[in-house]
């Protein structure tokens, strides 16, 4: 039997508003433990929440970018449960009247558009951070728990998708595209390592062609897009093997541990919480004014999905996707506008520039364009060095353009001869058919010439000489 996976995502994005969601504490990553706290976010008796207007606007903006309907009336609810990192014993969240609902994100793929439904995007507060004190650093085996309330009350947007995704790769690409959207709207750093973007994945499988929804499991704690893809693949395989051996999948939450082969269960259905949701009586319902919604809509530029489609008209879909989700496409457009070849520019940006870690915003596109145009004539080493300096405010391509690559066979042949002579064993092996050794010789020549030789010419000459 063939199987189809059904995947839904739940994404949390921390907003980078100046203050927290329901108090005036600074909303900032880091700081000494419990330094960004007040009676409200420590839940002292009698303290009351006041909703952050800016956070409401940003949630609406993200909702609009995800093509959601913005509610005329949205309500905060209390989600009640006991945990040391939740000082009020309830999280203020949204329940049946969220700010944004019924949206979609259209994701271009090599085979055409895939549309993922957005069930809702709502606003809530983040929990504080439990620090489990144990040598392993893991929850299992911890001996004590300390709580840092700095993160408690950070504004969070929760985005829930419809179960419209059927493979790990699409899930991964959706997450990347969503992240890029959030970053471009300037709502969040959305940095996975810092936890300012987090996601949970719901996975079930069913016989291909069926439209039933079987028992799903929830995967948590995946802090990279690749882990998400890997976790999903692993979970799909696990569920299929359970069904194929005549078993039943249990509803449970699984804790993803990157190195491990299995995801240990965190809690099963029997332990599922009854959150006793009810409307938060300390806050009044939110009624977003129409003109505010339209103003926010006007602030949204061309979104990443649309740009991938537009750029894919010029480049391959793959290149367009890499440029846009890497946040490189605006620089690419500028570099192309300054005279560089589109494909060449894309290659340089996606392969070499991205490795420098320099922010695209810091780059003078005109100077970069000059480098791209002259790429073949500049020694490799000089080109690499130029790229690494692109972030400098006064960067100029001129000194690098003056350095010319050595492409003259007459100049290169003596060096090549010397290298072959010094490595007779390798030369013998190459002649005996070990083609891979070509790279060794080219590398030696490049090294000998200080990176100034034209690799294409060296390649050609080495082969010619060894073949004789």
């Amino acid at each position, binding site marked *: 039997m063939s199987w189809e996976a059904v995947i839904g995502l739940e994404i949390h994005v921390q907003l980078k508003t100046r203050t927290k969601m329901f108090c005036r504490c600074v909303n900032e990553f880091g700081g000494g433990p419990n330094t960004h706290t007040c*009676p409200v976010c*420590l*839940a*002292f*008796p*009698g*303290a*009351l*929440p*006041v*909703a952050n207007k800016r956070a409401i606007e940003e949630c609406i903006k993200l909702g609009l970018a995800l093509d959601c309907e913005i509610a005329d009336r949205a309500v905060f609810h*209390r989600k*009640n449960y*006991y*945990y*040391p990192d939740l*000082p*009020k*014993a*309830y999280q203020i969240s949204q329940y049946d009247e969220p700010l944004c609902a019924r949206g979609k994100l259209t994701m271009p793929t090599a085979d055409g558009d895939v549309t993922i439904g957005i069930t809702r995007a709502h606003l809530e507060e983040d929990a504080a951070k439990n620090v489990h004190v144990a040598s392993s650093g893991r929850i299992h085996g911890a001996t004590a*728990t300390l*709580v840092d309330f700095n993160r408690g009350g950070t504004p969070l947007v929760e985005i829930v998708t419809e179960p419209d995704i059927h493979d790990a790769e699409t899930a991964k690409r959706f997450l990347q595209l969503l992240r890029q959207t959030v970053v471009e709207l300037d709502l969040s750093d959305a940095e996975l390592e810092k936890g300012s973007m987090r996601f949970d994945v719901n996975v079930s499988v069913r016989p291909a062609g069926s439209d039933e929804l079987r028992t799903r499991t929830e995967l948590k704690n995946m802090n990279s897009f690749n882990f998400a893809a890997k976790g999903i693949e692993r979970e799909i395989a696990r569920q299929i093997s359970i069904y194929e051996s005549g078993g039943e999948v249990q509803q449970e939450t699984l804790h993803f541990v990157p190195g491990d082969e299995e995801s240990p269960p965190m809690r099963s259905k029997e332990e599922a919480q*009854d*959150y*006793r*949701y*009810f409307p938060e*009586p*300390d*806050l*009044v319902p939110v009624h977003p004014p129409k003109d505010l919604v339209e103003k926010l809509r006007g602030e949204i530029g061309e979104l990443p999905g649309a740009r991938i489609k537009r750029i894919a008209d010029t480049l391959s879909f793959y290149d367009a996707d890499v440029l846009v989700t890497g946040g490189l496409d605006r620089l690419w457009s500028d570099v192309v506008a300054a005279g560089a070849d589109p494909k060449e520019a894309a290659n340089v940006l996606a392969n070499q520039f991205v490795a420098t870690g320099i922010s695209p915003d810091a780059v003078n596109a005109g100077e970069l364009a000059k480098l791209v145009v002259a790429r073949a004539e500049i020694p490799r080493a000089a080109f690499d060095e130029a790229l690494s300096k692109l972030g400098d405010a006064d960067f100029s391509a001129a000194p690098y353009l003056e350095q010319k690559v050595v492409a003259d066979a007459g100049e290169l042949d003596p060096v090549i001869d010397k290298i072959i002579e010094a490595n007779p064993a390798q030369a013998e092996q190459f002649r005996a058919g070990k083609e891979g050794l070509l790279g060794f010789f080219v590398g030696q020549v490049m090294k000998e010439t200080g990176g100034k030789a034209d690799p294409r010419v060296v390649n050609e000459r080495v082969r010619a000489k060894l073949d004789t």
Partner: protein
Amino acid sequence: MTIDTLRLTAEEAKGLLERREISGAELFAAYAEREDDLHAYLYRCEDPGGDGIPIALKDIISTKGVPTTAGSKILESYVPVFDATVAARCKEHGLRLLGKTNTDEFAMGSSTENSAFGPTHNPWDPTRVPGGSGGGAAAAVSGGLAPWGLGSDTGGSIKQPSALCGNVGLRPTYGTVSRYGAVAFASSLDQIGPVAKNVRDCAYLYSIISGRDENDSTTVDVPAVEVPNAEDLKGLRIGLPKEMNDAEGIEPGVRDAVRKAIELAESLGASVEECSLPLSVDYGLACYYLVAPAEASSNLGRYDGVRYGLRSDGADFREMLMHTRHDGFGDEPKRRIMIGTYALSSGYYDAYYGKAQRVRTVIKREHDAAFEKYDLIVSPTSPTVAFELGAKTADPLAMYLNDLLTIPSCMAGLPGLNIPCGLSEGLPVGLQLVGPQFAENTLFRVAHALEQALAFDVVPERLR
């Protein structure tokens, strides 16, 4: 000069201070040095200096640097790092804190017997309760231990103790006084309000504490408060809801005193007519005892032993949490947490909390309709005068019925004011005036005129 703390009003005290007939220190000492044989206070303060009028605050109200226990063992060691908005506003007006008054644990009760620190006694008869939950503040004001005070009212905790102690208590319109810093019981019902010896003091104190607060999203701007002077009630239309004036359980003595007050109102020019609030009275109490415990079950979740207050030992968080709450909460909070948790649990929400909230809308509408015909409605505040200590502690339902007449207007978010209107068996009887939203000025005007005509002596007979 000697200061008669039993009789001196805040307004009179202000006059004495302004005319420099007494010093601020003398005034404060007059209250502070009086023996608290009623156990009205849980904590008494040193004179902070200055020459403002002293005030007592119910121990539900957070006071920076001064213990705030909410009458609970779980907060026995808790000292707030911030002032409640009402406490801050009192300070801004120079009012000096005399102390924190006793309360039923987390304001849950009608007799102050649920305080973890022992009951308060009624100044008229120390064998009887002062009402609750704000029995401490009411006893302090009537017992000469404070010129005035602030209480909190969820289902009658200001009005009912004022009735049983024979003073003036206002539960303001929901949203007119900030709840910021008041230990929460039931957020959609809790309101802070004044307790005083007369209506003018009550109005003045209300003017100090009321108004929008950026720390409480549910607050609104309030019409300017008028300290009343009126002596007649010409043109006033009073409605007498028959369900609240003829309810089962109203003592004959209470009924008589209230009837006389109403006749007096008529003689002052008011027109009085019987009206009806059938649903509000039939369903008010039942719905209140779903809404309030439901919200309480959530509001009391924060007492987990992690950050402040009591912490009992336990092998892990779960165990520490359970031991702390087991040791820290008394029976009444535990009872309400259980009821409330049940009422909010999945599958029961619609039938209980959801439905009770919808009934509130019905109660509100029924009151709105009455206020199309009447400027205010009148009834006894409490069906009985002060009862003996211990008389109802074994029967929570009998205790809950004390609030039968105060709860409907609380559920509708409406202002209600108690004034003493006579005695029954030597104990004060309270008259409840309820108006439409933001009608505090009407309540003050009418209550003041009645107060003048009734000439009730607020000093307990045994202390005169």
